[in-house]
């Protein structure tokens, strides 16, 4: 039978990919090499051989506290950010809310998700720091002395409060398309078949949104875990988080064994890799359902 001309993929492929060589060379030099150096260096010993002691030593202080704190902060900001982000996004998107609220929120979230680091840290110092505007307002007008009661911005809790400023907008950006994807027809069909709003959410709404929600929370977790500048700007390195500790070690505070910093970096990489592995199938599932 007559067959249309089929491009023979084999021989063309072997020549064509050379066009991407500059790109691969570049990523090799400036992405994989540095990354590899760190990850491999975690297993090197000061004396020149290989060792697991750097990595196994992570379960001792101060690393243990750092990882624990980092994981706690990331979990808290991921979950709270997730819930708040969903609540706000849903409030803005649902029927009844004027359209400008939704587009304003999306625009703002796009910008706010990138408010990070030093400027954000300062903004919160100006708000809730010892002489912050809100602190003083509460002290002078409401007679509530938060610092007197033990609160301080320069702590794990403070970091969590500040991190939410970019976590929540990130959540909004990620979950808004999923909420959009909840087709009106599903609601109506469910209602037509006799379901109450609660039954709709229970059997259709929540199950359909779940992969997106989980994926988003995972994304938030990773985002928080990797953050450095904000915590640094807030506490000048005083709070015990893994990225801060790595920075401190590298900058020379404790340096008979440079591989310790690398071991911590390896630990970070592991956590983030696990997140990524969990995220990708969730992402695919939610994309499939929003067709």
């Amino acid at each position: 039978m007559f067959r249309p001309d089929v491009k023979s993929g084999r021989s063309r492929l072997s020549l064509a990919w050379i066009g991407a060589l500059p790109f691969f060379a570049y990523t090799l030099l400036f992405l994989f090499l540095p990354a590899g150096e760190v990850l491999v260096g975690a297993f090197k010993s000061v004396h020149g051989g290989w060792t697991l002691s750097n990595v196994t030593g992570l379960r001792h202080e101060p690393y243990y506290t750092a990882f624990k704190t980092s994981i706690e902060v990331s979990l808290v900001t991921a979950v709270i950010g997730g819930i708040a982000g969903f609540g706000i996004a849903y409030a803005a998107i649902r029927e009844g809310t004027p359209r400008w609220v939704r587009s304003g929120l999306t625009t703002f979230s796009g910008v706010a998700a990138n408010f990070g680091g030093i400027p954000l840290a300062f903004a919160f110092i100006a708000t809730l720091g010892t002489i912050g505007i809100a602190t003083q307002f509460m002290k002078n007008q409401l007679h509530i002395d938060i610092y007197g009661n033990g609160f301080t911005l320069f702590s794990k809790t403070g970091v969590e409060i500040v991190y939410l400023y970019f976590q929540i907008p990130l959540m909004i950006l990620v979950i808004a398309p999923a909420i959009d994807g909840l087709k009106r027809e599903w609601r109506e069909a469910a209602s037509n078949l006799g379901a109450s709003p609660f039954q709709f959410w229970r059997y259709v709404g929540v199950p359909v949104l779940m992969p997106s929600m989980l994926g988003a929370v995972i994304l938030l977790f990773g985002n928080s875990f990797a953050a450095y500048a904000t915590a640094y700007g807030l506490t000048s390195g005083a709070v015990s988080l893994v990225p801060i500790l790595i920075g401190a070690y590298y900058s020379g505070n404790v340096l008979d064994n440079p591989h310790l910093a690398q071991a911590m970096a390896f630990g970070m990489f592991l956590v983030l890799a696990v997140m990524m592995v969990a995220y990708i199938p969730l992402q695919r599932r939610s994309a499939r359902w929003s067709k």
Partner: protein
Amino acid sequence: MMARLRRIAPSAYIWLFLAAVYFVLPLLATFLFSLRSNQTGKCCTLHSYGWVIHNGDFWHTLKISFVLALETIVICLVLFVPTVYWVHLKVPRLRPVIAFIALVPFVVPPIVMVIGLLNVYRGTPAWFYDKPWGILCAVYVILAFPYMFFALDAGFRSIDVHTLTEASQSLGASWPTTLFKVILPNIRVAALAGSFLALAIVMGEFTIANLAQFHTFPIFLQYVNETQAYPAGAVTLMSFGITWAAMLSLLFVGRGRGARPTLIAGGR
């Protein structure tokens, strides 16, 4: 047009109100802070802004960061545009590979990257290792890469690369002509979007600059934060302004293409 419920749900009000308070308050506080006078600790003076504008370091670091950003953008475009074009045109099977590589910077965040980077390139010549235009720019290209890639990828996917290229070549154009006169104008929006993202990244990147000890604009910001409370408010607002301008330009430019604003590494 289908009818919509005309009422706003009460719970929606609450969520949106609380959100507004949480997000506006810090900005307001920064602004008020920036207006406080150094002597009285109270409102209202523009002294801090004056201090910033007359501060040589402010302009110096701003310039460095800005030039760095431009350099990064140029390298990104020169490296990634032809690559993405080539992949879309000739080797589509490589696309998932590149997309996967684009995820690596999320698993190897700046704080991890920087210590490897500085170790690997320790022995390189001073013009590369000691100057921001060398090693710092090199890694900024990597930081910008995922965003550039997704922006360009989306741009290329929205045009029919094959048809345009074949049409151009059948009319007698050479490769460079095709690239510059046919392809580039059509992905202009995507390239601009990627560029604005790169700009925001570089102008806000602190982690690597800090550990590699380069004096960029965010480093200056942190210095002011640690030393001068009220002017810190002024520079913080200015820095916000720059980020906002970049992101809003991005949204403006990406309007017809459904560009979704995304997150930037290293600035957090």
